[in-house]
């Protein structure tokens, strides 16, 4: 299928490793070397212990739907409607936005378990969420 180009991210110094890992189909968080807490990728300084020190750690890819929206009004040519955007609370703690991939008519609800799968797009592989536990 011919795909309209998505708005691809412009990685910066802080986010480049995050996006490089997605090319290997890995969803990374920052894990604090001070207290072990996971940080959302853009959080540089640990909110628990104020440590900058961290290592990139791959998510297990499991979470539950924290909220969602079904988009019906198309505003960008790359995103054909309808599609479902999920906000998923990952087991590690951070909440991640990605699309739902499920057969038409799949009911989505808050609290539903989902897991990460990967879709390859021309310039940037992206995670999607699939219903069910990994």
């Amino acid at each position, binding site marked *: 299928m011919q795909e309209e180009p998505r708005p691809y991210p412009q990685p*910066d110094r802080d986010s480049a490793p995050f996006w490089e890992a997605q090319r290997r189909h890995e969803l990374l968080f920052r894990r604090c070397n001070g207290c072990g807490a996971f940080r959302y*990728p853009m959080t540089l300084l640990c909110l628990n212990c104020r440590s900058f020190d961290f290592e990139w750690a791959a998510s297990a890819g499991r979470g539950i739907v924290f909220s969602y929206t079904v988009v019906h009004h198309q505003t960008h040519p790359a995103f054909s409607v309808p599609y479902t955007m999920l906000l998923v609370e990952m087991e590690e703690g951070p909440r991640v936005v990605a699309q739902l991939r499920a057969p038409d008519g799949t009911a989505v609800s808050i609290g539903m378990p989902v897991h990460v799968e990967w879709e390859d797009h021309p310039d940037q592989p992206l995670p999607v969420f699939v219903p069910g536990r990994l």
Partner: protein
Amino acid sequence: MTTIRNKTAIAGIGQTEFSKDSGRSTLRMALEVILESLADAGLEPRDIDGIVRMSANDDVFEIDLLRSLDLPNLRFFAEIPHGGGAACGTIACATAAITAGMADVVVTFRSLNERSERRFGLSNLAGGLGGWMQYYLPHGLVTPAQWVAIFAQRYLYEFGHTTEEFGWVSVLCRKHAATNPHAMMYGRPITLEQHQASRWIAEPLRLLDCTLDTDGACAAIVVSAEKAKTLRATPVYIAAAAKGTGSRTEMMTSYQRASLVRLEEAEATARELYRVAEMTPRDIGMAQIYDHFTPFVLMALEAYGFAAPGEAPHLLREGRLELDGSMPMNTHGGHLGEGYLHGFGHIVEGVRQLRATAVNQVAGISNCIVTSGTGVPTSGLILSKEAY
């Protein structure tokens, strides 16, 4: 402790017509409303020594006004960030400058061709794909309605409401706009059934939950309370002006914070407003609440203390926000009915109501709370008829 309570006042206002196509530049409209607000106050351009502007989508800068108006005495200028969160913040900044002795006559304004030129409601890629937006835009979460829908779904889930509760906000604003000749939706009230029948934009938001991209401009002149008493227009005093922030903040996508059904920025703004004004929510007689999307109006009413969490729909159900209610809301029709000037129309309406010159005039009010953008670092005002 000294506060800014009633130390400053709004001494002049201006507003263009609101439309889908202004037919002129944002600079032209900014100049029109600034001259109108100066005339309202009985001042001249040379009296202006301060300018506070809003960022994002507004491309009229101090330098354009300097070139166009010739302002030999300009000595203070500032820009307040975060889009619609800044509207009341411009007045707060003007108040800070005036009470610090750094300016005497400060112009604040908003001028937008947001319908005919740059539509904010379409895929919002203007800021590029760096920063926090790189985590959302590539997935297809690309518009303000979609960002807000994530919060709205959570509000329905946590409090067991239906989308009818959102609809009541829209019905109220359209009712007030219907009798406001200035409003985009003049003469066009809606019913709850029409709201429920309108098409989905991003569930749980329908078309009639979303504001209207609008062309137009507004301005307000801020001076000291003493100076305001010497000017042409009836002063409207600034009993309090404040800005507020929250935890783990992003522009419209603060999804990492503990609760998605509390507007932390508005709660912080509310605490400061009531402290400075020496008021409680029970003292407030009228509210102009920022309404780009209906769910955030409900959450804002809760954040500013007018209802417990999840209970703002009762205010609408009981008619308390109608023109004859205990705290009339968005008497001009708000963004949903009058037009979307990123919160500046709400300030101008608050001033008109306290001057008793509004089209939907409410009798006997002594103060009005005005709130700015939700989902972003925000700001608010308590305007007062008297310098108590």
